[in-house]
């Protein structure tokens, strides 16, 4: 593997972006953090389309995906990514405010790797983001590509 894979943060709320970035920052990860503001943009990034057409051919280390998003919502993004054999290997963590059981159940049915309800308490939130980042970006070993091109090749 070449450079560190980027972490894709899909989040529409600027406050959440800022707070999540602050948390990731404090975990001192070297990965690039790409921010997409809605589901459509996230899919463009993953599939190297539109504005992301020319990006480096590399899957994100992890997608931190909010549930409620403009245009294409988080569950739709999840469904697309996990339903496609070429992108199925990308770890997706739902990072959301929702405590709705239905969302949790649906996410797991769609193949989400983890579902995290953002804690209200700051320390817990920081700890959670940090752990997610460290685990998925550093510790987790992604599945090897079996022949052919990397995703979207």
């Amino acid at each position, binding site marked *: 593997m070449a450079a560190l894979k980027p972490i894709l943060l899909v989040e529409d709320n600027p406050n959440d972006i800022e*707070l999540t970035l602050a948390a990731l920052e404090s975990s001192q990860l070297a990965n690039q953090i790409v921010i997409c503001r809605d589901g459509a943009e996230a899919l463009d990034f993953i599939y190297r389309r539109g504005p992301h057409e020319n990006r480096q051919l590399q899957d994100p280390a992890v997608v931190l995906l909010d549930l409620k998003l403009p245009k294409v919502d988080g569950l739709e993004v999840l469904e697309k990514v996990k339903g496609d054999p070429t992108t199925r290997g990308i770890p997706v963590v739902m990072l959301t405010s*929702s*405590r*709705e059981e239905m969302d949790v159940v649906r996410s797991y049915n769609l193949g989400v790797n983890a579902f995290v309800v953002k804690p209200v308490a700051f*320390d817990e939130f920081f700890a959670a983001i940090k752990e997610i980042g460290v685990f998925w970006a550093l510790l987790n070993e992604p599945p090897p590509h079996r022949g052919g091109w990397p995703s979207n090749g």
Partner: protein
Amino acid sequence: MNQRDQTTHGSIDLSLCDREPIHIVGSVQPHGFLFALDLPDLTIVQASANAPTTASVGERLEDGFPELAATAKRYLEGAADSDGALYLRTVTLGSGSTRQAYEVAAHRLDDLLVLEMEEAEDASVEAGLDALNPQLRAFVQRLHAAASVEDLCHLLAKDVRHITGFDRALVYRFDRDWHGTVLAEDGNGVLPSYLDLRFPASDIPAQARELYRRNRLRIIPDAAYAPVPIRPATTPAGKPLDLSQSVLRSVSPVHVEYMRNMGTMASMSISILVDGALWGLVSCHNQNPKRVPLQARNACDFLTQIFALQLAAKVRGEHAEQRIALGAVQSRLLGFMAEEDSFVDGLLNHPEDVLALVNASGAAVVTADRCRLLGATPTEREVRAIHDWLTARGAGEEVFSTEALAETFPPSAAFADRASGVLAVSVSKRFASHIIWFRPEVVRTVKWGGNPVKAAQPDPEGGPDRLHPRKSFEVWKETLKGRALPWSVPEIEAAKDLRASVLGIVLKRAEELAAMSEELQRSNKELEAFSYSVSHDLRAPFRHIVGYSNLLKNREGANLSEKGRHYVETIIEAALSAGTLVDNLLSFSQMGRHALNKNTGEMGALVEEVRRKVERDVAPGRTVRWEIGALGRVYADPFMLRLVIENLLSNALKYSRDRPEAVIEVGRLPPQDGEAVFYVRDNGVGFDMAYVDKLFGVFQRLHRVEDFEGTGIGLANVRRIVERHGGRAWAEGTLGKGATFTFTLPLREEAQ
């Protein structure tokens, strides 16, 4: 009787009597004679052997007895539609030494006319109905004054004996099994008293009772009579002559023997019919042979009919009175049931009225999963057995009543002292449920006029066994067990009416529920949408406030004054508690929407698991003594029940944290009203019972936040979960001494 039959069956059953064809005996008693006449020309087709030879079979009546023929024609011209023999007139036949007065009675039989001439004493001919008039009038007046059925019977016995001059007159009443009891007696002491004695149903067999119903008055002037045959034996249609309506009809040899055994040579009986059914008999006896003039017999028949009318009126009056009394109870109960959410509560909260409705000493309301008992009843297990039995037998049975349950449901003999009488109504077909009332056993001693379990005796002359009536009229005492006082007609009706009311209420509720259910589904959807948006949209800003405040504190803290840092601290705390509140509120709403997934499990294991979990939050250095009793098994949703236990145990820990030694007790009480009862007790700060109602409310708190943290949602969740299981939750406490939280869960058989 068929001899071959009897010899092949070595033992003889008294029900053989039931098959004796007593209405076609083919003979008459000798105190009169009979002609059967063909219509319209009144040809004699049958005659009793003792008929005067002036006219014989095959001749016209007019040829031998012009006087009788004229009377018969007049009878035929009149509206001869009355059921039974009609007295026509007195005629005198013959002359000189053969001169004899006869009372002529006639009745129609298909296309025959039956004419009976009964010998009369000349003197009695004069004593017309007029002579008896004052007597009848006095009787009617006294009847009106009689207070009870027994008084009425005494009057009847007395007057019938007075009119007829028999040695003894009895008024005899049939019970539901056709055994008879002597209710009243009047006598001159010549014959023994039978008052209060009970006679077995076999004494008056079924076909005799039917005859008694059709022909109200029968007389045997001399039991030693020799029967006079009717010749020829059959009518022109080839059948034996039906003597049901005959006044001279010869009786069964068995009956004559019965009379001789009783020491009586003459007898008369009059049927008491109430609303067309045989209610009882007036039975008169004389030691020596005795004739009773027709006029006197008619007077007795008349008296008896008036008596029967009065009796029916009295019974109806008593029923009406009872109906009014029960109606008042019923309308009260109806009101109570309408007030409550469930009709069952309306009944359970007013046990006196439930029992008074049918004058029962105990009652039970039994549904598939619950059995509630009121008053004196068998145990829950026994009541459930009755319920199951009723459910199994009752295809389309709305009401069931018995005064002797063990006769149809033998296992109930074990608790006859509480439930010999049972009256039950089914209040739902789909979910087998009953309201059952109980009456205790009333042990009675009955004096039988001879052993009712009589056996046939072999013929002393060594012939084939022949049916003999019993010879002994010695009093034979029997103790009747397993019987309660019978349920009266108004009581059974009251139970039926209550059933109708309950069904009405339940049906109305079902309609309301159906209407509400749509509304509920809609608002449930709205609630879901609402909580979803709260979950997302309200929670996020609180997170942001907490997050930014923390960033401010951590990264810009140095630039803030002491006061500024305090403000930031406060913002963090406030936003944090608001966020926690939102989280709790959401979990509370999820609790209500979450479907219950009940199954049976060990309560002790669950409590132990939760105890280990909550103990992790106990501050180091605290002493906590747990006293956990035997908790048994329970039928509940384990996920939900865990939340209940967790709330109660963490509360107990929280509010006892100032105690040098916290004592937390978890236990189970004996079941009550079909519910398992659990409690959690602590020796903590307790609470003032004045505020007990606020304890379980959402966001209701009895302590200041500085003293005890919390949002006030825990106990609301406890109550909500317990109530969704069909149980109840409540608390008791003393300020400074501790608190006890109790909750119940409905018992299920398999959880016991």
